[in-house]
């Protein structure tokens, strides 16, 4: 039984019993999920309300259900990793208990244990993450959402380790999976995420044709899915592609649309957004605007436990300062300090040295 079948069955029972409290337990989730992009703080509030209600109704499966969604909110919508390990380890330990053997979110919770390390320091924990992903793959059921979850994390992990070919191959596997899926809603949901990733890959490879193509496809899919965050991202990637092609008016229009769309969301922009926006400004020879973009990014990620993102952002700031011919010592010191928060800072420091030497390949 997948999670939604379980939820539906629970709801039918509650309805038949006229049990308003348990119906509320069911209905809080869609209410919360609808706010994921517009107001993740409120999403968290509703998840917390669901958790407390589940405790008061003595519904341990629902306690775990809402804890899982609170974790999802922290990881994917609030990008706040400060206490994420505490929560995800607690949930992992909880669902090992026999009472949760059949809980339909066990696999998802384990996936999020991996995701938490991917968020915080993917290189530092690469060995453990790889082993955990292999293990989860061995558990993966033939049907259902689990395949998407696992492949998406593998795709993400490969990206973080700069294994771009592998990451793209995983994206293609995800698309094939979605194409064959009879659950079109689920397929669409995950396809949007895959195209967002393909845009990043195309940009990293400077494959401008593919970037433009993926961004247009992604926009269409995001509109169909109502994925407002991704929609803003696809518009921005299109702006970047248009600027590269010299379609300056189009580029500016798309960038304005993207920025207005993003500004309407309560969810903060993520690393992909800032990479795209900084690249857009850089391509327009506005290094100062690119630096301001990174300032804003830093402001958003600082003190949120985003160790990996922080050193990457600082690395980009150093690169821009070097390119602008401005003093870089202070930022380089901050980048070293940020790298020091990683489990193994050698790679990060090596990258920093390359940037400070003005290596354009970095």
């Amino acid at each position, binding site marked *: 039984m997948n999670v939604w079948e379980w939820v539906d069955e629970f709801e039918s029972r509650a309805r038949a019993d006229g049990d308003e409290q348990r119906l509320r337990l069911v209905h809080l989730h869609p209410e919360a999920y609808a706010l994921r992009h517009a107001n993740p703080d409120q999403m968290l509030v509703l998840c917390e*309300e669901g958790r407390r209600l589940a405790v008061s109704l003595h519904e341990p499966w629902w306690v775990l259900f809402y804890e899982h969604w609170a974790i999802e909110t922290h990881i994917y919508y609030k990008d706040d990793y400060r206490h994420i390990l505490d929560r995800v380890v607690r949930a*992992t330990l909880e669902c090992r208990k026999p009472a949760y053997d059949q809980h339909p979110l066990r696999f998802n919770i384990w996936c999020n244990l991996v995701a938490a390390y991917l968020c915080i320091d993917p290189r530092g924990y690469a060995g453990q993450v790889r082993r955990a992903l292999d293990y989860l793959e061995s558990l993966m059921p033939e049907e259902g959402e689990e395949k998407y979850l696992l492949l998406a994390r593998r795709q993400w992990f490969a990206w973080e380790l700069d294994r771009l070919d592998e990451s793209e191959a995983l994206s293609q596997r995800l698309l094939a999976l979605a194409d064959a899926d009879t659950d079109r809603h689920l397929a669409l949901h995950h396809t949007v995420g895959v195209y967002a990733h393909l845009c990043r890959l195309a940009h990293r490879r400077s494959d401008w044709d593919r970037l433009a193509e993926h961004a247009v496809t992604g926009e269409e899919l995001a509109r169909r899915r109502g994925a407002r965050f991704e929609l803003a991202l696809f518009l921005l990637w299109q702006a970047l592609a248009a600027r590269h092609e010299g379609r300056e008016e189009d580029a500016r229009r798309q960038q304005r649309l993207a920025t207005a769309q993003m500004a309407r969301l309560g969810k903060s922009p993520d690393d992909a957004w800032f990479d795209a926006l900084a690249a857009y400004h850089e391509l327009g020879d506005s290094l100062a605007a690119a630096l301001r973009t990174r300032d804003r990014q830093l402001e958003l990620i600082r003190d949120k436990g985003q160790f990996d993102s922080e050193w990457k952002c600082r690395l980009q700031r150093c690169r821009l300062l070097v390119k602008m011919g401005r003093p870089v010592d202070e930022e380089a010191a901050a980048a070293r300090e940020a790298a020091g928060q990683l489990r193994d800072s050698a790679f990060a420091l090596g990258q920093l040295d390359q940037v400070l030497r003005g290596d354009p390949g970095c």
Partner: protein
Amino acid sequence: VSQRQRFNLHLPGLLKVLAEHLYSSKKVGIRELIQNAHDSCVRRKIEGNEAGYKPRIDISLDIPRRTITIRDNGNGLTADEITNYLATIGRGYTRELREKLALYSPAEAAELIGQFGLGFLSAFLLAGEVTLQTRSLQGGPALRWHSAGDEHYDLTEGERDEAGTTVQLKVKPAASFILNEQTLADTIRTYADFLPTPIHLNEEDEPLNLMVQPWEADDPPAAIQDYIARAFRGTRPLCVLPLHDARVSLGHDFLTVPLNGFLFVPPGSVASVREFGDLSVYIRRMFICERERDLLPPWARFVRGVIDTPLLQPTASREGIHQDENFELVRQAIEEQLGAGLRELARSDPATWKRVVRGHADVIIGWAVSDNEFFERVEDIVTFRTTRGPLSLTEYLELSNGTLYYVTRELGSLQEQLLAEGRDVPAIDASWFSVTPFLEKYAHRHPEVNLVQLDGEAAQLLRPVPESAYAALLDFYKQLGVRARVATFKPAEAPALMLYPQGAELAREAEASLEAGDLPGPLAGLVHEYVEQKFAGSGELRGALYLNAASTLVRRLIDRPPAAEVRAAVLTLLYQMARLFAGRMLSAGDAVEAFRDVTRSLEGLVKP
């Protein structure tokens, strides 16, 4: 071969799509027919030029015959108009009339509602058969139009003496719910409360709809209060902010956003954290949708309201609005007026502002964490649950001499609360997830304020003392393998406390799970990383026993040491009492062991 060809239409299919799938609610059929009736009355007013004309719509319900009849005394339709407008999908007379009027008579144009020429089709959401009897003010015979919802209709001579139109719906079984007077009345009120044409149900003398928007009433504040009480189930708002037309900057120019309505803050609920942040939206007095959330800024989750603006563009079904540039302009206008209104409220009526902030504390705390400007506005007003009831941080800091003491665990924090109260300060309940970030932000913005998390950092409430005088006691515990320290703390009545680091329970459970091997190996690896990272080799998880140097009992053990046996029994009792009182990190086995030691010690003390 280059050819230019026309699309073909499959009319039955198109009719089915439009009638059955365009709208999400069947009740919309009532709205569309009322609106057609209203537009027909407006048209008669504009084109008829009759002194003393009184528009009116009558709706009647015949449950045995399963019919609903909507009758207006508007302009009526000619045979040509039936062919060109009623029976032509996508073409509406109202839209064309409005476009004609837009330049020379915008006020009259604004009274017209119809837009798409699709609304009449929605009658088939409710009805299997629709019969229309009409006589045009322009002259000509009365006409009868009849359709059973397929691609054909019949037009014959009708029976109606005066100008106007009567639409009769033969309600189909799937829409039987509308054959209930209360449901029909609620539907009419929902959609047409603000429509200026009176609507009478079942020949009642009094119209069912308000006809006047509350902000247009003789006494708008009173009318708005009454309206909120009626439409929002008895809510008595904490404050109401009227909305008005707004000048919005476009960068190079300004634009006036026509805007009517009001926002209000409902009273907070003690038990629930559910909030709103939604609007009921009207366009030209016709209800479009409720619970529209995107027109309010994300932080305004404690605000509700009603707006009417012709600037918004409804979707074809008119059950939602397009999020286009106009939407953004309206959103901006509302945000500016809401922000200004709240600022003014804070300035001119601080007592009400306090009630707003305190009534919605949970949501406001969460919002303030992510919004610096708002944080400044509420940081000294919002109240927190403390061991001495709700207190603002200003009130709290006066009691605590500049330090914020808080507890994050929902349960078992009695010991920490005791420590706080021992220092004569209340403890803040930070079990609500957004309280800790709020307090952290507050402390960050006020460097003179200290922040102490009692569960995990309670040792900060203890004052260290030189331990050499207590060496004998500490040695005893050392031999038992217990980490023991001596400090002074309040209340002096507590001779010993057991303190554990934050997250100790979780780490211990993780360790136990790793030892038992009940987590799959690769996942255990990640959990192991967590434990290592958090408590690398510190041994802190076992906790530390703090003897209170201010306790007369502890001092007596040093100043007038009893016999070794008695001292051992007392020290054992102190340790186990502290463990049990802490209520943390105790397995069932630990508790049994603790009680066994307590009993053995007590037996030693009372033996003859």
